[in-house]
């Protein structure tokens, strides 16, 4: 009796994951297409935020709840707000009389290249068939397991990343200050 209940629960979870995956995958693909097709970069950034949010919801279906939350907070929140700030800092006229609408040979070639890359990837992936995921172990993707992985196994990588962030801050300060060579 208990086993049957557990199986029903797993089945329900699979169905919900499927529905959520399809919904948010389609939404995020649409938002990504809007991101690259809007001429106005503010609209691009807004649809990019929505796309990143939908990708975070796809992460939830992979039982990667913490990574999804970080995606929403850091990506859709911090990074895209930074993008929006920079878009608003730059002058408006810069994109209004741009040549974005021109369709030339280079654009057609690039679209064909991306389409053929996608086709090749899809064929290569589809050849392996589509088996469902094996059942996840207890605690998979939980903050406890993730934290012990980061702060024990990958402590050095974590500390190296903090140095990287520090270097990035120094570089940004240098680039943004008015006294640098870019301003003479």
């Amino acid at each position: 009796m208990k086993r049957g209940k557990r199986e029903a629960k797993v089945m329900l979870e699979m169905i919900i994951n499927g529905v959520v995956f399809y919904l948010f995958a389609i939404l995020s693909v649409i938002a990504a297409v809007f991101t690259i097709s809007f001429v106005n970069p503010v609209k691009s950034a807004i649809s990019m935020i929505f796309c990143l949010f939908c990708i975070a919801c796809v992460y939830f279906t992979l039982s990667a709840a913490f990574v999804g939350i970080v995606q929403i907070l850091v990506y859709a929140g911090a990074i895209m707000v930074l993008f929006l700030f920079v878009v608003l800092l730059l002058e408006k006229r810069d994109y209004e009389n741009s040549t974005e609408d021109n369709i030339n040979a280079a654009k057609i070639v690039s679209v064909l290249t991306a389409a053929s890359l996608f086709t090749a990837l899809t064929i290569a992936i589809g050849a392996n068939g589509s088996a469902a995921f094996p059942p996840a172990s207890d605690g998979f993707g939980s903050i406890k397991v993730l934290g012990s992985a980061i702060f024990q196994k990958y402590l050095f990588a974590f500390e190296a990343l903090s140095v990287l962030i520090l270097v990035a801050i120094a570089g940004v300060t240098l680039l943004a200050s008015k006294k640098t060579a870019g301003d003479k």
Partner: protein
Amino acid sequence: MMTIGLAHYLIFASVIFAIGLIGLTVRKNIIVLFMCVELMLNSGNITILAYARQFGDSDFHAAALFVMVIAAAEAALGLALVVAVFRYRGTANSDKLTLLKG
């Protein structure tokens, strides 16, 4: 029956990657180019997390978080570069930035 597996996520990631690649080659505005790079990084993250679920290993999640940190650093540096270039050249159009053209 809606059983989704690794292949679905990988194909989804390749769709996002292809859209990012198209945007990177078609668009002219440098900021939008950065957004396309972020899209491609995200498709990489989807792949990492799909394999994490496949192998049931939480270490992959740490890798995905590290990718996010590096993407954040890259976005901050790249946008600072865009602002510096805009101040120097007065444009954010990649066609007009021909300083390094021979």
